[in-house]
């Protein structure tokens, strides 16, 4: 899905800088909410701030909008320092978590609210409102009372109201968290399409790693006021730079590893259940959370082999410990021989291939190239 978004556009590095954070610190009294954030968001980028609650992601978003002053450092938008610019003078607009739809106004009045100071004629403004509503799929809703709308519709009104001003940056604070799963997934796709259509830089705050992976060009994963990793979704998923990021994004299995030696850009390892093998230095650059090195691998990088199937690379004997059936997928918790803790394997269900029972002896296919070493 991120490919859908990134496709057929100028590469990020060649685009102009839209938002720059230079060593941004924010204190609330003694509490150090932002600890030296430095990052650059490019023009037309769909950028996400991802992290658990209290990590500072919303605070950082609000420093872009101007709702939070920063204690030190600088925030630049389109090359201009924003320190003395009030929120109503910034080239940004925001979609709030609660949508903040004005309940005493109609849908049309809500969407046209930002045009009050626009010198255009009434008819031109009405046309702009109608266009904005059409863009978010609410054509003809202008005269309705805003408070009578559903959650998804409010979300669209909030989007139209922010986009009608043609901001350089659209800020979205957990915009989908209040919607139920089906509508949320639908809105994710619509947001991506909308962003490509208008070409405006989107900065999204979310605690939902799946949402961030689906929508973003790049993601900044934040913990405790710091950016832990800033990368595109695929890099983040495949090559997390720390155990903490790996835990936060998707599911990752961890097995204790013993480092036998390093030579010629490779690290030799011994891992219980998998045996001796080597990984590249690139795979070995992630930080562990403790002193003990571990290898991590995603559930889909392992495959359960059925009778007569051959592994492409390596295989390990195992026993199935738990089976969770999801319809399209089955999750198996399997115990590799010689390892007590089970590892999770996800298998796409294929017609004609039975779901295996608990206790079945099996073989697991794996490949050293899919592992990450945390040390």
């Amino acid at each position, binding site marked *: 899905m991120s490919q859908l978004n990134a496709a057929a556009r100028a590469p990020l590095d060649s685009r102009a800088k839209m938002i720059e954070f230079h060593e941004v610190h924010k204190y609330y009294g003694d509490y150090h909410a932002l600890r030296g954030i430095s990052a650059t968001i490019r023009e037309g980028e769909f950028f996400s701030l991802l992290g658990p609650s209290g990590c500072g992601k919303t605070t950082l978003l609000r420093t872009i*909008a101007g*709702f939070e002053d920063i204690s030190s450092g600088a925030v630049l938008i389109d090359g201009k320092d924003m320190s003395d610019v*009030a*929120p*109503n003078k910034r080239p*940004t*607009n*925001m979609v*709030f*978590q*609660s949508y*903040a739809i*004005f*309940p*005493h106004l109609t849908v049309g009045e809500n969407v046209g*609210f*930002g045009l*009050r*100071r626009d010198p255009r004629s009434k008819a031109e403004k009405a046309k702009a409102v109608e266009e904005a509503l059409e863009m978010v799929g609410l054509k003809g809703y202008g005269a309705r*009372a805003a*408070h*009578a709308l559903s959650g998804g519709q409010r979300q669209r009104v909030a989007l139209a*109201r*922010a986009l009608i*001003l043609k901001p350089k940056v659209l800020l979205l604070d957990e915009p989908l968290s209040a919607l139920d799963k089906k509508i949320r997934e639908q809105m994710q796709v619509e947001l991506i399409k909308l962003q490509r259509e208008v070409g405006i830089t989107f900065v999204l705050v979310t605690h939902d790693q799946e949402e961030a992976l689906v929508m973003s060009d790049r993601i900044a994963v934040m913990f405790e006021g710091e950016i832990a990793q800033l990368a595109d979704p695929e890099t983040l998923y495949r090559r997390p730079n720390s155990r903490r990021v790996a835990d936060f994004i998707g599911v990752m299995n961890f097995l204790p590893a013993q480092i036998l030696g390093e030579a010629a850009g490779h690290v030799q390892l011994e891992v219980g259940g998998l045996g001796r093998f080597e990984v590249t230095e690139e795979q070995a650059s992630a930080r562990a959370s403790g002193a003990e090195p571990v290898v991590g691998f995603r559930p889909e990088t392992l495959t359960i082999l059925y009778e007569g199937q051959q592994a492409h690379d390596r295989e390990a004997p195992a026993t199935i410990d738990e089976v969770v059936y999801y319809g399209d997928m089955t999750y198996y918790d399997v115990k590799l021989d010689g390892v007590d803790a089970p590892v999770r394997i996800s298998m796409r269900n294929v017609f004609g291939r039975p779901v295996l029972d608990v206790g079945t002896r099996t073989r697991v296919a794996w490949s050293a190239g899919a592992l990450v070493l945390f040390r």
Partner: protein
Amino acid sequence: MKFSSLKGYAFLYLVFLYAPIVLLPVFAFNSGTIIAFPLKGFTLDWFRDLFANQTLGLALKNSLIIAVSTSILSTTLGVFAARASTRFKFPGKTGVMGLIMLPLVLPEIIIASSLLVVLLAVGMPLSLFTVILGHTLMATPYAIAVLNAAFSSLDRSLEEAAYDLGETKWSTFRLIILPLVTPGIISSALMSFTISLDEFIVAFSLAGKETTLPIYIFSQLRFPKQIPMIMALGTCLVVASIVLLATAEYFRRRGLAKTGAKDTGGFL
């Protein structure tokens, strides 16, 4: 249907509450001068006396001036205080708010006598104005209590959204906050008005030579001859209160319907 003891209690409660009010119009239209059954006959004389009474007219005018001023002043002060207490954090906030709300629990006689001492000490002559000051002091805590509820139910991001969309802080207040707290403002104004209109002790202490409605009524209770006219006056006041409350409730409900807010209880 079974007539349970709980229902009986509720019935007696309502009788106790409303019987005196029901008796008001009954005796207001009774031609006898003594407030007792059996009733004698129908008359409109007491109402004629009422409207012909110039002292009463003056007292009513004074009371309305005081009540309207008190209503406007305490609601305005209440808006500032409620806004400050719901939106901002500042050192000593709890203490300041506590002190503002204190008149709620202070006996009126204490407020009245201490105000009198202070006013005499600073040499301010007693007048309608001093009554307005005293009533504002008493009504403001009630206004704040009502307005606090209205302001704290506002989503703060509404304000930020308007600010974000290019409005100034003042125009945001005017365009977004004020319309949304209007039901609260109506409630507050009405409550302050009512508190002031029937207040006796502070008015009696601070009015100097002026007369307000409660002072006038109290002074007339000594003359049995005047009591039927007071009944007529009471009847008029009850009707006026009902009309006023119904109007306010109508506007409050209309405001709620327009914003789709949940009804958290009004007057009726």
